[in-house]
């Protein structure tokens, strides 16, 4: 049974009936990124050098490559959900709003794909 008025139902007003997944996804990716980002920050500080060969060797280690891919995926997903909420809250002009939301989503999908591919390339190219 719906408590919406018939007019409200026709106009599509009221709660969307979805959103739980967005909320949980944002928190899940947040929890994942606590250890992942701390590992990344500490790694940057403890790498012997930040030159091409040291960073390549570090990224190419299988465990590091997997953790970096997980970081890139969690980051892209979290940033996509977060910037989406910011855009939804502050942009009200319909055309601008849908344009920005579309561009944001596509950019973040691209971000994840580019990050995964970059790590994969470095890992497969580097001599073990």
């Amino acid at each position, binding site marked *: 049974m719906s408590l919406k008025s018939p007019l409200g139902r026709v*106009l599509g007003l009221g709660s969307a009936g979805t959103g739980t997944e967005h909320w949980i996804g944002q*928190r899940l990716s*947040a*929890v994942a990124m*606590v250890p992942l*980002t*701390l590992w990344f*920050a500490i790694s*940057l*500080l403890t790498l012997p050098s*930040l*030159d*091409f060969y040291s*960073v*390549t060797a570090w*990224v190419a280690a299988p465990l590091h490559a997997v953790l*970096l891919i997980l970081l*890139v995926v969690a*980051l*892209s997903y979290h*940033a996509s959900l*977060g*910037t989406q909420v*910011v855009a939804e809250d502050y942009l009200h002009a319909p055309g601008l709003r849908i344009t920005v939301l579309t561009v944001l989503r596509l*950019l973040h999908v691209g*971000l994840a794909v*580019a*990050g995964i*591919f*970059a*790590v994969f*390339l*470095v890992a497969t*190219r580097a001599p073990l």
Partner: protein
Amino acid sequence: MSQVSRPLSPHLQVYRWQISNTLSILHRLTGTALALGGFALVAWLLALASGQAAFTVANALLGSLVGQLALLGWTFCFFYHLCNGVRHLAWDAGHGFDKALARKSGIAVVTGAVLLTVIFWAVALTRVAA
């Protein structure tokens, strides 16, 4: 649909500025800045994948004055968003809603973020100097 321009929540014209809303705004600002930082991180990884020449250029950009300032900003944004994010997760689990405690945890989050940023850069600069 008829459009009436009514004042929108949170009614800024009657809202008293306080630490909790400042930190909430800061959480969004740092999050947005960190999203940009994510693009910089992936650009750095792509440069690494592209080869030594591209990676040298990327590191030179990050090593420039503007690059270093951006990295400093992102470091603070990261530690702030991390600490305040954990605070949000505690709230989501139903803890720390008490007004006095929320204020204290807010101050703790800012202090922690500043301290962690200082420690991170102190270690980084010491390692560069060594």
